[in-house]
């Protein structure tokens, strides 16, 4: 394929999201041997789907009876896309990413701060005469006695189950983190 071809342009059709390109095939015999043939591809500028090379290429590089041979066949290559899919996908992805980031910030920064406040608060309680209450209820030192009491009576089992599941998940992730990052036994 050795076409020189200046003035080559890409077609764009106005209206709609589809884009059309038109190509014209020009069979040109270079040698007299039957085995060899050369094809050149020119792009034509088109305004609508119905245009073809014959009417649109200016100035015509060949004249007279060769014009028909020059633009023997025009093929349109049809391309389409779906911008709605792209929009929905990007929005879904960014929202999941945002939620994960918020949860990560909560887990790494906010929760220890809240726990510290509760811990600090219960330390204050323990220093008062509620020590006996804490000990007799057998509650872990860094849980607020009042909160735990109220929670176990008023909230149903669903929240406890969620807490429980979350604690189990955290422990699993901790185990995984130890084997991958600390002990380097898996996935090194």
């Amino acid at each position, binding site marked *: 394929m*050795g076409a020189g071809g200046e003035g080559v342009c890409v077609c*764009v059709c106005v209206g709609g999201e589809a884009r059309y390109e038109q190509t014209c095939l020009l069979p040109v015999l270079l040698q007299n041997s039957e085995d060899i043939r050369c094809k050149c591809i020119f792009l034509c500028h088109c305004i609508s789907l119905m245009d073809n090379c014959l009417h649109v290429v200016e100035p015509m590089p060949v004249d007279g009876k060769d014009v028909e041979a020059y633009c023997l066949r025009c093929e349109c290559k049809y391309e389409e896309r779906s911008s709605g899919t792209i929009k929905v996908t990007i929005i879904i992805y960014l929202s999941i990413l945002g939620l994960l980031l918020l949860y990560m910030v909560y887990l790494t920064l906010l929760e220890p701060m809240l726990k510290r406040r509760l811990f600090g608060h219960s330390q204050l309680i323990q220093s008062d005469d509620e020590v006996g209450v804490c000990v007799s209820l057998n509650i872990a030192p860094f849980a607020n006695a009042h909160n735990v009491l109220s929670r176990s009576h008023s909230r149903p089992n669903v929240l406890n189950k969620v807490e429980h599941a979350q604690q189990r998940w955290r422990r699993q992730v901790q185990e995984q983190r130890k084997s991958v990052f600390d002990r380097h036994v898996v996935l*090194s």
Partner: protein
Amino acid sequence: FSAVTVVGSNYAMSNGGGAASSSTHLLDFLEEPIPGVGTYDDFHTIDWVREKCKDRERHRKINSKKKESAWEFTKSLYDAWSGWLVVTLTGLASGALAGLIDIAADWMNDLKEGVCLSAMWFNHEQCCWTSNETTFAERDKCPQWKSWAELILGQAEGPGSYIMNYFMYIYWALSFAFLAVCLVKVFAPYACGSGIPEIKTILSGFIIRGYLGKWTLMIKTITLVLAVASGLSLGKEGPLVHVACCCGNIFSYLFPKYSKNEAKKREVLSAASAAGVSVAFGAPIGGVLFSLEEVSYYFPLKTLWRSFFAALVAAFVLRSINPFGNSRLVLFYVEYHTPWYLFELIPFILLGVFGGLWGAFFIRANIAWCRRRKSTRFGKYPVLEVILVAAITAVVAFPNPYTRQNTSELIKELFTDCGPLESSQLCQYRSQMNGSKAFTDNPNRPAGPGVYAAMWQLCLALIFKIIMTIFTFGLKVPSGLFIPSMAIGAIAGRIVGIAVEQLAYYHHDWFLFKEWCEVGADCITPGLYAMVGAAACLGGVTRMTVSLVVIVFELTGGLEYIVPLMAAVMTSKWVGDAFGREGIYEAHIRLNGYPFLDAKEEFTHTTLAREVMRPRRSDPPLAVLTQDDLTVEELQGIINDTSYNGFPVIVSKESQRLVGFALRRDITIAIENARRKQEGIMLNSRVYFTQHAPTLPADSPRPLKLRSILDMSPFTVTDHTPMEIVVDIFRKLGLRQCLVTHNGRLLGIITKKDILRHMAQMANQDPESIMFN
């Protein structure tokens, strides 16, 4: 005497083969099954024989009840079709997730350069898709797409805007990489790495709990996009296989046929990995062959058909989502059909040699680096390491236009041959035509200055990619290897192709070129060299053969070029094997010490079973259980004092004749269950593994029958069995342990770990590196 006859009949049954013992098994199963027996601990190997027996048992039960009522019939139909249902769901999910990953990765990649003001969710190409103002020479410029320099500084050209673009590129790359590694560390540490070595091990029978779970799936999908978008030298094909296997695992939990049986689950995982490669490359047949050749351990014919179905469903879903904006599924579609000539086999074979050499070098360097990361303090700072590698990659990659762009786009550009539609720098040949006289008698074209500049940049890009991929593969973010190796091969191939083309131009009167290059036709197609180089490098590093050729010709659509591809892939495999028999995935398996018995290696040593079995001479004697002599307390004592996974059960200490094999986990669960459910089980209750309780004095507590957990048909070999046969048995049957007898008496035990250690010792490697059971 009655005891002896009872013992004798037991012995006959245990040696009578599988059929006899399965009937005793059936009787025992009809007694209430103990919940929890038959499951496995984390980081342990499954017992393939037991799982397959369980599945056949289940199938027989369902079939026998089929004729009873319409409900049972429907249940049997559901059971038969549940396999297809799982595989369909897996294909759907994989296709959908792959579409999400492709679209999001394309968008985030271009976010480093600029934004589309009219629609923020479009990347560069989509933004300028409908624009009227693109010209041929500048197809990428349109007013809706603004680079960061334009937005911030207000001007698009000039040194100030170049520095601003540079700075924003580095900023985005670092923030994406930092986000990725933080998410992996906080939520799912198993989501890092490629995933293929671990999946290979899981498919061979290993259990890693959580590796194919929901959180791993979500984090792997999200962080894969971030890792690819940060410009690191990695690809998304390996992680997509992991994502597909996670989907397969999650869906198999909906069906008890697959969730309760580890062997059946692995059939689903084989099909899922085929779906993963199918959506990664748009190559369904290549995906099935990849699953067969690289990933799966046991691949029965039923799995072949299911894998093909899964790959097709996944490819179909991906096509209907249509992420690339055209209805082609193929990534690097080549549209040329120029023939190749016989003398071109020489540069193709040279490219194969390059691929093999690079593969061997990469494997050695990457394993050395990963070993250093594993054992020194350097591995304690994964987040810092990721940020450092991303920073170096971004700083060095930006100035060179070939490394700045997306690696997939680079490969596409290198594969595409220069036609009148191409305006890239690589295609700026000096034109010889001036109007009417179209052709001289020289078929090729001389390179213009653009091509020489492009060659220099490509050489620098090649060196950069070779060095950076060594440090990038194995980072604690999802990272794949296929696209970087194909890029390295494509760059090398294109350079060789252009060199051969110029050689043909300047010396067109040489015998070689004059004979074969016909006048008037383009002789050398550098794009084809790039394709062959890519296949050679990928083959050199993974040592795939048939699946690689099929993947590459499905990727490019170039069916005429199978012979050059095969020549290059064969050469690269031979050259690579001369330096070391392992591909990159087997090397990582060995680095991590997973218990993977490679089916491709031959065991050629002449050792006997008694040289490998335990206990050795210096070890304490074999821990055995007698069939009706022990009390619960003694049994618990044996279990607590030792750390073995299973114990052979013998008739008595004097005769040492074998009855069966019992697993530690099953014994523990059975004892706990009995103490909870049955009354009267005390510490000095007798434990018996026989069918009938032994005669006990009248005031003794109720005895505990543990026959249901006993495996009555353990595999045995004699001590003079050659190790070749033992290794063959382990491989073919998927055994975990094998008992060694001498003259009919129990002598010792060989486990899979012992075999792996022995093979490592024979190959002069460190036998202590085998870590898991």
